């Protein structure tokens, strides 16, 4: 016979193999004799190829009396006539190879059948003759005493008397299976001939049956002997010398440490079964505890690079319990073989599906473990469809019944009369072939067969399963098994829930921080691993395979693809706001655009992703309003409002030059190129927004609606102005975007969106339409968005009357201070300056001093005007009303205590941070910081004292974020702006009622900031000593603050919402001043260390 090549291209093919174990007899009968055969098997090769297995392991098909299911061979070089001819086998082998299927056959060389010619010759040959020496003979059955009997149910001794030979012969298995004598070199030669016969034919691999028992020695267990290893090495040498891409698979039902030598140094068997793992998988499942598995894997030694474990859940034999302790065996019997008929020898004779009570999720979990543990998995025929067994058949025949192909007669296995079948098919209602068969499952998309096919295909995509290392994680929940598989760059995290109930698990994946896990079955991206424990929740018996990719690769997946390539703008906005282009917009352009915008609040947070939530097209222009979710690497996401427009041609280039920061992306509209940009730059868009309000239009969004609402003052504000009004943009705005229409309106577009009533609209409308308060810009309308899903409206923009002004209060004040320092710097510090430096309340009790009048000048009048204006605002907000949102509420002593407790808590935290940061502070600040830290105890005591006050006053709606930047200087007075509250706070907090003195404290602190910020700037322009000019700053700050407070109190008169007594007023004001100043310290420490001295000095200057 001409020697044929093996079918595999890779010498390590077996490391990636998925092996399917079958018995020719049980698979398909082609000639209707009731017994499966090779032609039948050939018919079913397409099925196996379609299933996706890569290797077929055939149980013995050689001539045999079949007393041990073919493991009693009477002719090594033939095919049992029941199964076909040698030509049939060759045809099968070729057909399998044509389908890229490798073939493993049995090399049963520990023993032969008693009918084998070698044995017949031996028993008739003279003792000591070469023929006789083919087997192990003895005159006594006492040799090798103590060697265990494997088939203890049937055999009483390893020796059997042969009346012909008149001697005992040695057999480790059945007495009809005499062991060959490997001390006889001729036996080895003959076995090599047998091996070469099949390898020459093209067989890819040989499973060496009962490999530990080849050689016997007195005084040993006759297992795993060095002489046995020598025989195996000899077989391997023969293969390596003459064949390529072949494999030897060792069957050694031993502990892993005892199996390890069968790999040698890569010079014995290529593969070996991992017997002890299998029962422990079942044990772990039943006990809902991963330890049985992790323990046995921990006891498994490493093997040479070219070697591989063969893993299985079930096979043609019993579920062997040889490799477990007695207790474990008892547990397994109780757990998996309630009926004693299910037991045989030291094991359980049942198939996979019946073992797990036909529970699909349990089957899937076990298969997931089999496929993801280190080794090559073996599937036993029929288990892919969940076939049952028949425990009423003898020996292990209950798991060797005919393959169930269809619901036809004999399960489609054979057309013979049922009585002729080698074994009855399974026919009961649950497991019978009418319920469980290939044909039915092929046509059922949700069948176990289809699931198995998908899993096999998936496993084959990842080399790591066959070749990678394994590392178990150690989560607290032992019902969850989690392990990492690694092979070079390929990494997979497997997590399995062994419990019948859903389980949470926290995995420590900090060393994989930054990796992006992708669920492998559905290719679904999961959150990136971070330092903190990674939490997963697993369904009952759920498992998860996650392939791990470096974050950089994942995050640039989109960016890398989209850089510099224009977005395709088709006929409508849908073309870039949905589908592929929207992905590019989200993953690339917007991630770059957002951080560059002044109104984007989360500049210090790393954007993980953006997602378009909803969008609408403005009817009168080609612009769109987009609600965008911005997700960060940590913390809750934000929603932002984007206004988008497209400009083409020359105008686009002009826009790019004039406002590069407003450009979002290049676009192509048909053959024209242009830019996608912030639509605020587009006049037509701005007018469309105004028209939306004026006409109270409603435009549909994808998942909601956008509506304009005109305020009562709209027409008054518009007056007789000619339309269209000229559009301008306010460049000063930070957290929002303002559009100015002529000298009439200002539209403030709220960028950061939050569902709920917007306080600015609420207060503006209330003061304009209900109270008639004219120290705020008149409310002229709003734009709001309502999603269909929940109806939670959010405000997109507010329209107000434009107030003619000399700039905002901050700017105006800084200019005044510039002049102040210019004037005062050359002057000597007045001797009576110290008398001006006292508590604000103390100073506020009297008119400004002459010194203050002389130097601070007109700003004292401005401060008084601002004090009055502020008081009038609070009076307006505290008016009796039936509107619950504005109805004053009591501020109890308990409320105050809670407030002070919060301030104290915050102060403690800030002291800690400041203490930590002292070493990193600049020289100018470090001394002041030290002084503040030394006052820690005194400040905390002061706060405690404040908390004991028995104040009874009211909470009202207030400005909430009151400082000089929130007022406009209008001639000799002020107008108050921006009732949004602190942007970082929640909407509910910003709408809550609070003490009016919070606003007062805000403005007092703003005076302090103005005084020192201006001084810092002055020193920068005119190098000099900060300390020298500081007294002037103190004079200004103190006198202005006192005048503000004095005018405020005077204007208020006696009201319920502010303590009437100076002491009470002082207590409450100090509380809010401390709250504010500690907030400032924290802010400056984190964001603006050069200004840290301002709040620190604010603390030092307080009367504590």
């Amino acid at each position, binding site marked *: 016979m001409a020697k044929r090549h093996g079918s595999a291209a890779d010498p390590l093919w077996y490391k990636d193999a998925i092996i399917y174990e079958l018995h020719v007899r049980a698979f398909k009968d082609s000639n209707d004799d009731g017994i499966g055969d090779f032609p039948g098997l050939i018919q079913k090769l397409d099925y196996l190829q379609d299933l996706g297995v890569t290797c077929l392991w055939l149980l013995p098909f050689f001539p045999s009396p079949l007393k041990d299911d073919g493991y009693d061979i009477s002719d090594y070089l033939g095919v049992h006539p029941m199964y076909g001819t040698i030509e049939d086998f060759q045809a099968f082998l070729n057909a399998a190879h044509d389908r890229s299927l490798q073939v493993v056959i049995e090399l049963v060389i520990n023993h032969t059948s008693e009918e084998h010619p070698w044995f017949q010759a031996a028993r008739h040959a003279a003792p000591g003759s070469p023929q006789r020496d083919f087997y192990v003979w003895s005159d006594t059955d006492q040799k090798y005493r103590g060697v265990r009997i494997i088939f203890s149910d049937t055999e009483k001794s390893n020796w059997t008397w042969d009346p012909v030979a008149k001697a005992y012969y040695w057999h480790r298995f059945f007495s009809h299976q005499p062991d060959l004598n490997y001390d006889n070199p001729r036996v080895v030669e003959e076995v090599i001939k047998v091996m070469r016969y099949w390898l020459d034919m093209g067989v890819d691999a040989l499973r060496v049956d009962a490999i530990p028992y080849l050689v016997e020695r007195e005084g040993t267990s006759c297992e795993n002997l060095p002489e046995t290893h020598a025989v195996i090495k000899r077989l391997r040498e023969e293969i390596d010398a003459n064949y390529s891409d072949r494999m030897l698979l060792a069957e050694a039902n031993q502990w892993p440490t005892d199996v390890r030598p069968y790999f040698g140094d890569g010079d014995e068997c290529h593969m070996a079964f991992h017997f002890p793992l299998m029962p422990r998988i079942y044990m772990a499942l039943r006990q809902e505890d991963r330890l049985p598995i992790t323990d046995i894997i921990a006891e498994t030694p490493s093997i040479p690079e070219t070697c591989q474990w063969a893993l299985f859940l079930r096979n043609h034999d019993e579920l062997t319990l040889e490799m477990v302790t007695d207790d474990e065996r008892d547990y397994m019997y109780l757990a998996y073989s309630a009926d004693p008929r299910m037991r045989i020898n030291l094991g359980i004779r049942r198939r996979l599906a019946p073992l797990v009570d036909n529970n699909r999720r349990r089957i899937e979990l076990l298969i997931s473990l089999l496929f993801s543990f280190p080794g090559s998995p073996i599937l036993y025929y029929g288990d892919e469809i969940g076939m049952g067994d028949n425990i009423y058949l003898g020996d292990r025949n209950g798991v060797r019944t005919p393959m169930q192909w269809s619901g036809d007669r004999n399960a489609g296995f054979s057309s013979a009369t049922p009585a002729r079948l080698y074994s009855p098919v399974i026919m009961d209602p649950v497991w019978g072939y009418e319920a469980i068969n290939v044909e039915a499952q092929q046509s059922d998309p949700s069948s176990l067969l289809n699931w198995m096919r998908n899993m096999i295909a998936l496993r084959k995509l990842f080399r790591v399963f066959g070749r990678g290392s394994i590392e178990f994680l150690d989560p607290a929940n032992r019902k969850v098994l989690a392990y990492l598989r690694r092979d070079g760059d390929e990494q997979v995290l497997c997590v399995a829930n062994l419990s019948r109930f859903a389980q949470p698990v926290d995995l420590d994946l900090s060393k994989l921080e930054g990796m992006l896990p992708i669920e492998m079955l559905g290719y679904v991206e999961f959150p990136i691993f971070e330092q903190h424990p990674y939490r997963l929740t697993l369904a009952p018996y759920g498992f998860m395979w996650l392939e791990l990719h470096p974050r950089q690769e994942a995050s640039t997946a989109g960016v890398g*693809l989209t850089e510099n390539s224009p977005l395709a703008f088709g006929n409508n906005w849908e073309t870039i706001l949905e*589908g592929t282009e929207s992905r590019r917009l989200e993953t690339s352009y917007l991630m770059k655009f957002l951080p560059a915008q002044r109104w984007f609040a989360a500049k210090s947070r790393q954007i993980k992703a953006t997602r378009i939530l909803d969008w609408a097209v403005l009817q009168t222009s080609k612009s769109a309003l987009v609600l965008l979710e911005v997700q960060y690497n940590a913390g809750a996401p934000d929603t932002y409002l984007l206004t988008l427009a497209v400009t083409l041609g020359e105008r686009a280039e002009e826009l790019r030059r004039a406002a590069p920061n407003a450009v979002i992306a290049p676009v192509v509209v048909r053959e024209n190129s242009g830019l996608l940009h912030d639509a605020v730059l587009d006049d037509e868009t701005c007018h469309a927004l105004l028209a939306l309000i004026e006409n109270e239009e409603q435009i549909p969004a994808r998942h909601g609606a956008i509506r304009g609402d005109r305020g009562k003052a709209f027409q008054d504000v518009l007056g007789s102005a000619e339309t269209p009004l000229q559009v301008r943009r306010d460049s000063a705005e930070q957290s929002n975007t303002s559009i100015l229409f002529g000298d009439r309106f200002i539209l403030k577009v709220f960028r950061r969106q939050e569902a709920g009533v917007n306080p600015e609209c609420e207060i503006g409308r209330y003061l304009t339409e209900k109270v008639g308060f004219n120290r705020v810009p008149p409310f002229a309308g709003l734009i709001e968005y309502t999603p269909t899903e929940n109806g939670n409206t959010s405000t997109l923009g507010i329209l107000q009357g434009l107030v003619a002004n000399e700039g905002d209060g901050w700017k105006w004040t800084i200019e005044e201070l510039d002049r102040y320092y210019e004037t005062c710097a050359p002057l000597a510090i007045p001797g009576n300056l110290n008398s001006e430096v006292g508590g604000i309340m103390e100073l506020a009790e009297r008119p400004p001093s002459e010194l203050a009048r002389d130097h601070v000048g007109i700003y004292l009048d401005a401060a008084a005007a601002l004090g009055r204006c502020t008081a009038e605002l609070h009076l307006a907000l505290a008016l009796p009303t039936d509107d619950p949102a504005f109805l004053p509420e009591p501020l109890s002593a308990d409320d105050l205590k809670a407030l002070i407790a919060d301030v104290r808590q915050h102060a403690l935290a800030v002291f800690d941070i400041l203490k930590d940061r002292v070493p990193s502070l600049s020289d100018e600040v470090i001394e002041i910081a030290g002084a503040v830290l030394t006052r820690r105890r005194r400040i905390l005591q002061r706060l405690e004292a404040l908390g004991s006050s028995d104040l009874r006053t009211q909470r009202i709606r207030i400005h909430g974020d009151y400082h000089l930047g929130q007022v406009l200087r209008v001639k000799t007075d002020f107008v108050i702006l921006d009732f949004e509250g602190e942007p970082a706070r929640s909407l509910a907090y910003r709408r809550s009622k609070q003490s009016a003195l919070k606003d007062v404290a805000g403005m007092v602190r703003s005076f302090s900031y103005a005084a020192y910020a201006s001084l810092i700037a002055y020193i920068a322009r005119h190098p000099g000593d900060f300390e020298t000019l500081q007294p002037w700053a103190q004079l200004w700050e103190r006198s202005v603050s006192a005048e503000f407070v004095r005018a405020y109190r005077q204007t208020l008169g006696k009201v319920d919402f502010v303590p009437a007594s100076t002491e009470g007023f002082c207590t409450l004001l100090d509380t809010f001043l401390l709250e504010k100043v500690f907030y400032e310290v924290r802010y400056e420490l984190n964001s603006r260390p050069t200004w840290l001295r301002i709040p620190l000095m604010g603390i030092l200057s307080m009367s504590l």
Partner: protein
Amino acid sequence: MEVDSAPQQAVQEIGQINSADLVVGIVADLSQENVAEVCGALRTLPGNPRIVVLQNRLASDSTPADSAAPAQDSSLSLIPWALHTQSLPTTPPGSMLAAYQSTLTVGARLGVRGCCVIASKLEHAPSKWVCQLAEPLLEASCDFIAPSYARRKFDGLLNGSIISPLMRSLYGLRIQNPMGPDLGISQRLFQKLLDGNQNGKTGGSGMHLLASLVPLVLCGNFQTSQAYLGARSYPPTDWTNVSSLLSEILGPVFLAMEKNAACWQRTRTSSPVKVLNEPTSAPQTAGTVEIDRLVHSFQLGIRDLQEIWGLVLPPASLLELRKLARLPLEQFHIPDELWVRIIYDFALAHRLRTINRDHLLRSLTPLYLGWVASYARELETAEENTIEHRLERLALAYEMGKPYLVSRWRWPDRFNP
């Protein structure tokens, strides 16, 4: 085609050559002047390499070599070779592709450093363009040199709409013409190709060989680059025989996908492939496409092929197609995302053998014609520079849609949106 099956005289001539550095197979039907030009250019290659040029001359071609025939010398052997002899006259692409195999086989026999195939008549290429394909091979700096041509609106649409963006998305290499037809292959790479072919890994035909190139380059870590060759003359498209073309070309591409799934499913980004020389813009010719006839074919497909497409495409795609069929001509537009999903779903159905593979690929014809109509309508008035943008956009759609393909490939459940 094996060397042994070549004309006796050619075999003898090859047999007399002990070794060579480069084999150039001229598959295109070039005039003697052009062949002389190519040979002249090859002689300028640095290092005086030994070159064997196999010139395609049909067995029936009895035209005597004219005075323009290039002179032969010790550095260059010009061997007439009936490269088309094994092919059927009705299937020119297949016949041409057999020539690739023979060129590589001769290259392997002579132990050359690289093989080039010249399959195009190039209109505006400089005479030394062939050197762009050959030089990197001789320098051993590159394993695969793919051609890059000046784009024209309606040329190479099958490549532009499916092959190039699909391969880019799968294998992460931005190659304009991943299947040639002009190309250069290093000894390392063609040996691997031939080995694969022997092992039955790439199938039998030259098309399988070309479809295996990019997968092999990516999965085998071979170096690749592109050579800009100018404007290529494309044969006029026979719109009545598109189904054969689709079947013949996409079949091997989809098969290569199946074989290399483990490799392309780990590739998540694409990267540009260096173009060795500076592209120049090519003059535009006013190509014409009968949009209304193509749309009509698409609409006929919607009417007649619903049953087959129902096995391949998910309901959302089917619904979108139905809506498209009802659109007036002036609004007819197949969105890129839909087109990409269609191709991915066909690739998946090919893998799953949902229906007979040839029938499957032929049933793509009306959809492809619909895409051509949509593309043509979109670019009717487009300028030259927008073609690159348009096809780049499509390629990005393929890349963006790749997770859809991977998820469906890994878990091909019919119950999907």
